[in-house]
């Protein structure tokens, strides 16, 4: 199943974007997610909601994309994708949750991957994109 990405920038004093993913996120398309995240950041967004209501599968390459998104929204250069998990190699120890990014409507199969890899500790999760956006506005 191909993956689709729909981007919306919400109105408000703090610019927040919502990326709605649908389909399956894997090694063939994870770079498209990183490109979409980068476009939103470069367009001025400083908060990002990734709506996963329609995402039925996420491979470990999708986790790399989430790492990259976290890095981009911290204002750092995008990682070298050729390095795969090496993206995290040069980062300093980070014990707090990701800044400025929240996941919404995570489906069971994807949530299981996030939990099994420890990524669920890094990304706050909300039931809906609306709740996630409200949380980002209040930060």
């Amino acid at each position, binding site marked *: 199943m191909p993956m689709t990405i729909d981007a919306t920038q919400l109105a408000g004093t703090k610019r927040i974007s919502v990326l709605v993913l649908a389909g399956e996120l894997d090694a063939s398309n994870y770079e498209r997610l990183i490109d979409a995240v980068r476009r939103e950041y470069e367009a001025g967004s400083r908060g990002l909601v990734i709506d996963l209501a329609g995402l039925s599968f996420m491979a470990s390459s999708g986790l790399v994309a989430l790492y990259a998104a976290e890095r981009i929204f911290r204002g750092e250069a995008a990682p070298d994708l050729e390095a795969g998990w090496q993206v995290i190699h040069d980062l300093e120890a*980070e014990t707090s949750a990701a800044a400025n990014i929240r996941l919404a409507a995570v489906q069971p199969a994807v949530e299981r991957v996030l939990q099994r890899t420890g990524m669920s500790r890094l990304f706050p999760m909300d039931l809906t994109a609306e709740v996630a956006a409200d949380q980002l506005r209040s930060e």
Partner: protein
Amino acid sequence: MTAAESLTITAESGHLAEVRAFVRDASARFGASPAIAADLVQAVDEAVCNIIVHGYGSDRGQIEIGAQLRDRQIEITLLDRSFTFDPTTEPAPDLSVPPLARTPGGMGIHLVRAGTDEVHHRARAGGGNELRLVRSLEPRAEED
């Protein structure tokens, strides 16, 4: 009861969705619960991706995926002709360490292990690898 099916793909990431659909359909036909089928789909995707990216690299070899039900266990067999590599010897990532502080690597094989009961590797005569992923149809204790 024994049943078997197979699929052969060219080693390209664009074929991963086809592999997942094959495993999903076979698992359903073999009577796997949705949770077990999802685990197998995840494990096979990661293992095949590993062969594509790290095994064949820029080459475009073939990968044969076989699915078999034997004694209430689903057995997925992956055959390739890339260089001999045993992913079962990869160390597990330290999940007690925060994600951004971990040393890299191992997340794919970690998901292979997490989604299966057994992983077996052997080098093939003439070069390449045989990887067998086994998952019981019986639910795990932590599953619903």
